């Protein structure tokens, strides 16, 4: 099966920042992303969990973007501008995609 090179960018970010991040992605011409829930975790500021929470503060989401390699830098610049002052982890992995015409 024919596949194409692409980059898989995973941005783990606070739920309160989600719409700011996706707005920034939109502005950087990244219109494709999927959002996954994060149940809990731990980092420099200790452990947390969504269980029983009512407030959006203190929860995180994962925003996953599959992009063509040449769009990566613009995406990372946009993402970095949002996560800079905030908690947030950005990882980039090489991947292969089917149907590159969809990106």
């Amino acid at each position: 099966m024919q596949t194409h090179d692409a980059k898989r960018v995973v941005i783990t970010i606070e739920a309160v920042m989600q719409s700011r991040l996706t707005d920034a992605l939109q502005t950087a011409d990244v219109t494709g992303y999927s959002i996954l829930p994060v149940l809990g975790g731990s980092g420099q500021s200790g452990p947390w969990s969504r269980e029983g929470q009512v407030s959006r503060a203190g929860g995180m989401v994962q925003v996953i973007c599959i992009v063509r390699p040449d769009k990566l830098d613009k995406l990372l610049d946009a993402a970095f501008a949002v996560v800079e002052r905030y908690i947030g982890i950005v990882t980039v992995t090489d991947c292969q995609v089917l149907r590159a015409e969809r990106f």
Partner: protein
Amino acid sequence: MGDVLSLAADNLLSPLILFFVLGVLAAFARSDLTIPEAAAKALSIYLLFAIGFKGGASVAAHGVDAGLILSLIAGGILSATIPFVAFGLLRIMTQLSTIDAAAVAGHYGSISIVTFVACTSALTGRGLDPEGYMVAVAAIMEAPAILSALWLVSRKAGGNQMDGNLWREILLNGSIVLLIGSFVIGAITGQDGLEKIASFIVSPFQGVLCLFLLDMGLVAGRGLRDSGKYLTPGVFAFGMLMPLVGSCFGLAAGMLLGLSTGGVALFMTLCASASYIAVPAAMRVALPEANPSIYLTLSLGITFPFNLTLGIPAYIAIASQVTGG
């Protein structure tokens, strides 16, 4: 004083408090008892829906008077003012940084709707029904404190944390929209509307509140367990002194406005309570450098249970004394 204590003892053995305590104990013992996030959110939507609607229906029944408008204005002013008092106290009593102190201060200007409800049911149980429009006052008091907190930071640290998005998020926060929306709908549909849905929002209310307090106990206990280290003696003391200070402002405002005994006690409770839903979310966006463990643990782990157990009976006793109610 003896009166306060007996009220408090009564209060301490109510199912509401006991379920909160159960939650705290379960969290400390690291039990795996948890309420799913979706269920906790559903409980909180139910409470806001019911509180707002009943408040609106009661306004429809008793009519709008000048007290309503003046109380709303007073509420807005108090919410914006109290953070300055809290900030001053924090500077004296604790070593918190400017940003942390401002973030905490913002929480104490805003309100906790569950504390509001707990006070309302204690009042109703004693036949001291408060003015129905106090729900609207509670809604109004959610947001102004946030602006004061941001102003405190920008004055000291420079820079502007506000953007248009944040304004919208603060003012159109889900809990404010639902509370005010239900209040307005309750006011429009009045007693007719209330009768239609009373067996959903009136009769099961206390039971749902018990479950919600269990959840709050679980979350508060988890916070105290994991972040208790941020509670230095000064911070801890602030968490119990500040509600008393806030309640004095509420007392003064309630007396000036000529509210009923229940209304005065409720105004005291609003001023004494600290937010743990709307303000933390705004603070994460506007002041990401502030440590959420400090403000959440203080607000939910110290001040909330303090008000629930000792504060509310005290505010009711004082209001009764002062208004002669």
